[in-house]
Structures are given as structure tokens and as C-alpha cells.
């Protein structure tokens, strides 16, 4: 048993103890345990973070002309994978290409906001160049440039001015240098010594906070707060956290977290047989993801609803492209319509959305196995092992088998294989519960002219119908725990450490006490000491570490 698994078992046991003994604590009496922290990290910017950062610094019109490599998913999150992945030569080439296109945009003579507009072309304007590179570098690097760094990019600008004879062209290449620097493309956390203790420095704190609550680089206010030492004390952090929680960018952060958690990155590889699923087209592909994110934002942020209710919500948002999937009227001709499903509708909750059902299906059929696995892994944070290498899927995939007309019939036969039965025992009940949705999420009651039986039992909760399954999922004790722990992993960009188990326990109890509302949970994380803490065993990321060393000019 790994440390992580042991720790989860321990946490589950604690929760059961609390439930059985009725010893829930009042939120006000909760005290954050002593922060344990984790290692210092070097994290790659995600695609959404890169895009958001560029647009927040250079404007929404700034072009991003590159292809992003798929991320690495670890512990169920791409955000965790960002601290484990490297930058390939392909990525560097793409970043360089994007940097040139972006710099061309910034220094386009027709751009009224072109930097150093008043400077002569045939002379190197040291003052303006230094000002531009230092202010833009502050935003891009998320901390002030060191003197050596500033001199480096100034030198790049000067050399290109000498070669090309134009000041703005020279300065443009200084910007290209900033945009391709590790300090921009990687989130390199740094420390400082306070009272003899090594802690995250103020800019690294600002960076963690900004990406967690806005999914973009720190804004000028946050950088100023870091410079003024405001982030070194609780009240200063609280001011910034409340400011960011109240800003519109919180929506982007929440969308990014759920995009990551729900594995929407896999939509780029999804394909469906258009002969079998004629309603599934490129518009549906886009809108299905957005539908789920809109519902999440509406319920969790706008309505400040209970997270568990996401799994039996009857309200949703639809476009006309999605209408034929759900077979309900969509009033608005353009954009989104708020729609309520009837109370007896099978459509209830985000697990009944086309985004989930289509993503966890085969190109030409549904898949109770993939869906059951996804329910376990995505929403309950439970691990389901991959199938044995020699497993025979023939029987399970014979969708036209009239002797075993439904998926349930075929899986029962398939599960006679001892090597398969163990995993299917946990995957099949939730997967088969969704069998009344076809491979793109269209409701059906028959398969091969045989009624589809969705009855089952989800970890002790029996259900007969799809809505009852939705309720069982909503009631599942691991649903909120999984969200709270995954959100913390997302925020710090790594798996939790052994010593953080008490903090996770605390976090789960806070989530209970705030009625499973997301924003208070995010506030708790952002204000916690654990969020900023680093453990003492991080010498691998000291200044002598190659990752840090190569980031220094």
C-alpha cells in the first residue's frame, strides 16, 4: 500500500468516526493544523494559463499562434502533472514561434499602443527600453527582473538594433527573449528566509494565489502587495484573497479547475461515428463542454449552491446544437437557454451531460465500463486498475449480440472471468446506471429492442432508476471529500504529502461546515498556511539545482 492510499484510508476512517459519533465540529471552532507543506515546485504554465497571461498583459486581441502539447495527467489532474512534465523541443519551438508573432503584434507600427512610440528609430533609447523591459518583465516573470536579467534582455535588444538598424525591431527581440524565458514559461517558486525559517517568497505566494483564484498571472495590484510585504501577514493576504474571490476572473479559475478535473482535454481526441450519432457534430463538441461549465459556475458561484447537488441538478443550459441530443425545446435561437428538465427526466446532474457521457464512451457505442471507471476516478477519487493485458473484450463489445442484447447481459457474462470481476464489481453499478444514455448522451430505454435495466447499488445505496442513481451519487460520502482534496492538489500543483493528512481532514470538515459551497472552500485554501507552506526537504530545488540554475540568466 502506498503512502497516499494509506493516508486516504486513514482519512476515510476518521470521517466515519466523526459521522458515527456525531462529533461534527462547528466551523468557527476549527483550527488549521500546523502547516506541513510540500516541496518547492517548478511548474509549466498550462495552455489556459499561458493564454490568460498573454491576454491579461497584452490585451484580448493578442494573437497566440502555436500548438500546445497535451498535458500530463497525474493524480487525476493536469495541474499536478505540470510539476512533473518537461518542455519538449517541439514545445520550445512553438513557444518561440508564438513569441515572435506576439511581438510582431505588439510592435506593429499600426499599433497605437506600440511601446516607446516616441523614440527615434535610428537611435537606441536606453531609458525607454529599460523601462519597457522591466515593467513588461515584471508582469511576465511575475516578479521584478534581477539586474542581470534586465541587462540580458537589454543586450538582446541592443544587439538586434545594431544588426537591423531599427530601435523598435531591436526592442521587439528583447520581448521575444522575455516570452521565451523559462521564468515566463515555468512557474519557478523561490524562497526567502524569515526569522531563520525558509518560506515561499512574496512573489511566489502571489503567483500561487493568482493562478489558484484567477488562473492567470498576478495582476499589478497583487504584485504591488507582494512588493510591499502585504502577503507576508494574514490580514494582507485576506485583503487580496477577498479581492480576487470577488473578481470576475474567479469564474475562469473555477472553469479551469473543473475542465481539468472532468478531463475535458480529452475532447481534442474524441471521435464519434456520424452514422450512429448524426446529432454529434463540432458544435455539440464545443457546446457540451461549455454546458457543463456553465452549470457548474451557475450553481456553485452564482447560486452559491451545495456541490453535491451538481449531481442531481434539473436546471441546465442548452444551445440549439445540443437540443437534438437532449430532445427538449431550446427557446433561444442564438446562444444559451436556461432549461429545466421535468422532475421524472433521466437528465439530472453533470454526470448525465453529453460532455461526460460522450467522453466516456466508445466512438460507436456507450460504455458502462468507461463510465463506471470515470464515476469512480473523476467524482469519487477512487482508483480503478487498468484491465489485465490478456483480457478478452470480445463478448463485452458485441453490441449486436441478440443472445445478450443489453450491456448488462454482456457484462455479466464477461465478469465470469475472475481477473475481470473484481474491477467490474465497482465499475459496473455506476456505469450500467447510465446505460439509458447512448454513446453521445441521448436518452433511450431499449437496446436491441430489450428494456435497459439500470438498477444497481452504489456502495450501499440501492437504486432502480437513473434519477435515483443521481441521488445516490449526490449522497455519496466521497463526493465532497474528493472535491475538497482534489481542489487542494490543484491549488498547490502536486500530490499531498504524508504530513498534510491533518490539513485534508481539516479541509473536509470545513467543506461540511460551509454547506459544501465552493467559494468558502477556496477561501479556506487560499488563506491557509498550508497553501503557502514548503517543507524543509527541498534542497533539490535550491539555487544549485539545475532547474533553477538554468532559469537564471
Amino acid at each position, binding site marked *: 500500500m502506498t503512502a497516499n492510499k494509506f493516508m486516504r484510508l486513514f482519512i476515510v476512517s476518521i470521517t466515519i468516526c466523526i459521522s458515527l459519533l456525531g462529533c461534527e465540529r462547528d466551523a468557527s471552532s476549527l483550527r488549521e493544523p500546523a502547516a506541513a507543506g510540500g516541496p518547492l515546485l517548478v511548474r509549466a504554465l498550462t495552455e489556459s494559463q499561458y493564454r490568460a497571461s498573454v491576454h491579461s498583459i497584452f490585451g484580448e486581441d493578442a494573437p497566440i499562434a502555436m500548438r500546445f502539447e497535451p498535458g500530463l495527467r497525474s493524480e487525476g489532474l493536469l495541474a499536478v502533472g505540470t510539476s512533473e512534465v518537461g518542455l519538449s523541443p517541439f514545445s520550445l519551438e512553438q513557444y518561440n514561434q508564438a513569441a515572435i508573432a506576439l511581438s510582431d503584434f505588439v510592435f506593429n507600427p499600426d499599433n497605437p499602443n506600440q511601446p516607446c512610440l516616441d523614440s527615434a528609430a535610428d537611435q537606441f533609447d536606453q531609458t525607454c527600453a529599460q523601462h519597457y523591459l522591466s515593467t513588461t518583465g515584471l508582469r511576465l516573470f511575475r516578479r521584478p527582473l534581477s539586474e542581470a536579467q534586465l541587462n540580458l534582455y537589454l543586450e538582446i535588444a541592443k544587439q538586434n538594433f545594431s544588426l537591423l538598424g531599427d530601435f523598435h525591431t531591436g526592442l521587439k527581440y528583447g520581448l521575444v527573449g522575455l516570452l521565451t524565458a523559462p521564468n515566463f514559461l515555468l512557474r519557478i517558486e523561490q524562497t526567502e528566509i524569515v526569522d531563520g525559517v525558509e518560506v515561499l517568497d512574496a512573489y511566489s505566494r502571489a503567483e500561487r494565489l493568482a493562478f489558484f483564484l484567477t488562473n492567470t498571472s498576478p495582476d499589478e495590484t497583487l504584485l504591488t502587495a507582494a512588493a510591499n510585504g502585504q502577503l507576508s501577514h494574514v490580514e494582507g493576504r485576506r485583503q487580496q484573497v477577498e479581492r480576487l474571490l470577488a473578481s470576475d476572473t474567479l469564474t475562469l479559475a473555477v472553469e479551469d479547475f473543473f475542465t481539468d478535473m472532468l478531463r475535458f482535454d480529452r475532447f481534442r481526441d474524441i471521435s464519434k461515428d456520424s452514422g450512429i450519432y448524426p446529432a454529434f457534430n463540432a458544435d455539440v463538441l464545443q457546446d457540451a463542454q461549455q454546458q457543463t461549465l456553465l452549470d457548474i459556475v451557475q450553481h456553485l458561484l452564482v447560486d452559491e449552491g451545495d456541490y453535491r447537488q451538481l449531481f442531481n441538478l434539473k436546471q441546465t443550459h442548452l444551445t*440549439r446544437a445540443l437540443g437534438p441530443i437532449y430532445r427538449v425545446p431550446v427557446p433561444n435561437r442564438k446562444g444559451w437557454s436556461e432549461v429545466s428538465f421535468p422532475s421524472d427526466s433521466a*437528465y439530472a446532474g453533470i454526470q448525465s451531460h453529453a460532455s461526460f457521457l460522450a467522453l466516456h464512451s466508445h466512438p460507436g457505442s456507450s460504455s458502462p465500463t468507461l463510465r463506471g471507471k470515470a464515476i469512480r476516478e473523476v467524482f469519487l477519487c477512487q482508483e480503478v486498475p487498468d484491465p489485465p493485458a490478456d483480457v478478452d473484450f470480445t463478448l463485452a463489445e458485441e453490441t449486436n449480440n441478440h443472445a445478450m442484447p443489453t450491456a448488462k447481459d454482456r457484462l455479466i457474462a464477461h465478469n465470469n472471468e475472475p481477473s475481470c470481476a473484481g474491477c467490474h464489481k465497482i465499475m459496473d453499478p455506476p456505469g450500467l446506471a447510465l446505460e*439509458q444514455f447512448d454513446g453521445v448522451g441521448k436518452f433511450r*430505454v431499449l437496446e436491441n429492442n430489450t428494456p435497459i435495466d439500470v438498477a444497481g447499488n452504489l456502495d450501499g445505496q440501492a437504486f432502480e432508476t437513473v434519477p435515483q442513481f443521481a441521488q445516490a451519487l449526490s449522497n455519496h460520502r466521497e463526493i465532497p471529500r474528493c472535491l475538497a482534496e482534489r481542489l487542494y492538489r490543484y491549488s498547490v500543483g502536486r500530490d499531498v504529502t504524508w504530513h498534510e493528512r491533518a490539513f485534508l481532514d481539516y479541509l473536509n470538515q470545513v467543506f461540511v461546515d460551509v454547506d459544501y459551497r465552493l467559494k468558502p472552500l477556496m477561501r479556506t485554501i487560499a488563506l491557509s498556511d498550508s497553501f503557502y507552506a514548503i517543507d524543509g526537504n527541498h534542497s533539490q530545488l535550491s539555487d544549485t539545482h539545475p532547474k533553477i540554475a538554468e532559469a537564471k540568466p
Partner: protein
Amino acid sequence: MNLSMSTKNQPLLLLAITNVLAVAMPHALNAAEPTSLAGKASAGFVVSDFKYALSENFDEMLSCPQGVSKNEFEIYAMTPEGARKPTESEDDFEKRAMQAAYAKMANGGRNLCLHPELGEKDPYFRVLDNTRELTQGINLDGRASADDFSTPDGEQGIDNQFLRLVGCSQSFQPSGTSNGFAIEMLAGSWGILLSLSGVDDWQNDDLVEVSIFANADPIQLSPARKPLHYASYNYDSDSRFQTVTKGKIKDGVLTTEPADMRFHHVTNALMLERIFVDAQIKASISDDGALSGYLAGYMPIEALYDYQFGYRHATLADGSLAPEARRVQTSNGASFVLGYTCQGVYQAMHHLADGHYDPIEKQFTSISTQMKFEAVPAFVIETDSRNTDITSTGAQ
């Protein structure tokens, strides 16, 4: 006579209530497929195919023993001066004959397609005047007269003088191009919506309400360009394109009382209107919520000439009259490609008209026409709807 469409329309106030269709999702344990109409009181449809009902046993030798109609080029080529000269290349001949044909159609500045009444009688226009042809459709006037057609299974009295009009024109044959106008519908230029409400029994019901609308939205298609089921569409807010009538269902076949209908039509980006007077629907309702059958009625001949042949009053998208050059090019080009003269077809439709007799002019003013259509399930949404709660506007 008054051919106003509005006189037969029901008050449109009803539409907002009756035609916002919403279908409750069936209970999970119900073994009926969710596409079934069972238990629903209303249903909407979008027309997925729409074309003229033509002959089902056409044989050029038997059906048109005097040959097919000719265009101005072919007519000129048959004259002594128009015949190809021995020393003339094919290109030169075609160029000379086309110039002559266009010159005749230009008619000294009053183009014959825009002014077909000025044309001399076309001796080469052919109509389908035999009694052997079989076609499907609706007996519009309740009688079986000599001009009427029979169906392959022996039903008599099918009124379809339009078929006689175009039956011996090359492009209206089974392999011709004139019956492919649904391409424009699938491209989203126009469309037709239907809705049925007040249905107690989808097999037999003595009284149902049937609404027919012009679609205000482009039809939604699959990647294979097949209309999608259960898409949502708004109907045209212009009341001229909204019709409500009564109908009944017998043995799963819907028939409606006569009503006037008007639809959009687009040719060569020219906006046109397809008008039916005293139109009826006869269509089978399938268990999975589809319609298949006929929409038939009388098309006023001047309106028919406008949208099908002459484009005299065609407009641009903004409603303004299209430039004359564009109307002339479209109508002249169509007559060449489709094989008739504008004056010939205009004269024939007056001769074949069989509906709405004008006692003053002492002539019929409309021509019976049968359209074959298919329709798939859809949601018909009221214009300017703000209601977003399915349950509150739910199944009736």
C-alpha cells in the same frame, strides 16, 4: 375574386399557447422509446424533403408522344435561318443561335420572361395530356373528373394540373433538375414547420389542430446532411406565413381542412413566395414521430409563374425588388436550362388552370398542385419566446 390568405387563418393569438411544443421525458422505467408519440398531446415537425409529386410511370414515348417542350434556342435552331450551316462550326452555330434566342426573349426591351403575356403563342410547348399517368396525392375537390389522375393503387380524382403543365418539360422528368429545389431548403434558405396539438389518440382523433409555418431558422443537419430529429426552430413572425387549420387522424393518417398557406422560396438568391390556396395535408404519422405524405392545394397562376418561372417580383434579402438584370438573367437562364419558353409555360398554365373561377374574367385563376413531403420530429418555438421552463409549457 379574393385570394387573400388571411381570411381563412385562425386568430394567431392562439399560436403562442398551442404551438410551443414541449415533451416531457418519459419515465426511466417506461419501456416505450422516448421518440414515441404515445402519451403526448402535441408534436412538432420540420419538413425534411419537399418536392412536386410527379408521374410514377413516366415513359417519354408514351407520356409525351409529341415530344418534350423546347426552349428558344431549340426553336430557333429548327427554323431555316437558324439551322446550322454546312460551313459553320458547332461553337459558331451555338453562339449565333444563342444570340438570336436571347434577342427574341429580349423582345425589344420588354423581356418575355418578365412580360410573358406579350409573347406569341408557343407552338412547341407540350403538356401532359394523356390519361395513362399515375401519381399520388390528394383529391382536392372531392370529385373525379377527366383531367384528374389516378394513384397506382386505383384511387381516382387526384387533382394535379401542375403535373400536366410541366409533365413534358425535360427538367421535370425523374432525372431532371427542376424537382431538386429542396437543396436550397437543406442549405438553410427556407423551410417549413408543422405542429399538431390537441391530439388524444395518434391513430384516430376526430379533431386536432394543425399549424403550418414558414421556418425562420436554418434546418439543422447531420454531417451526412440529413435533417436532425428534435431540433428547435422558430417560426416566421410574419403572420402571412402562419396557418392554423383543423384536421383529423384516421388509422394513423392525418388529413386537414383546406387552408391557405405561404412559404418562402429561394432561387439564385432571389427571395420568392410559394403560395397555396385551399391547401390540404394528407400524411401518415409514424410511431417515432415522423410525417410522410402530401401537401396539395391551388397555386394562383400569377404567383406560380413568379416563383417557379419568371421571378417578376423577386426581391433581395432586404425586401427590395431585385435588379431587373438579375431577374432577367435568372428567368432566361432557367428557361434555357430547363427547356421551355416563358410565354409557352405562361400560356399553358392559363389553359390548364382548374381552381378559383373568376366569373368576371371567365377563367380559372389557380392550378392544382401536389407536393410530396417528409417531416421529422422537431420543436416549434414561438417567436420572441422568453419562457425557458420546459415544465411550465410542457406537454399538453
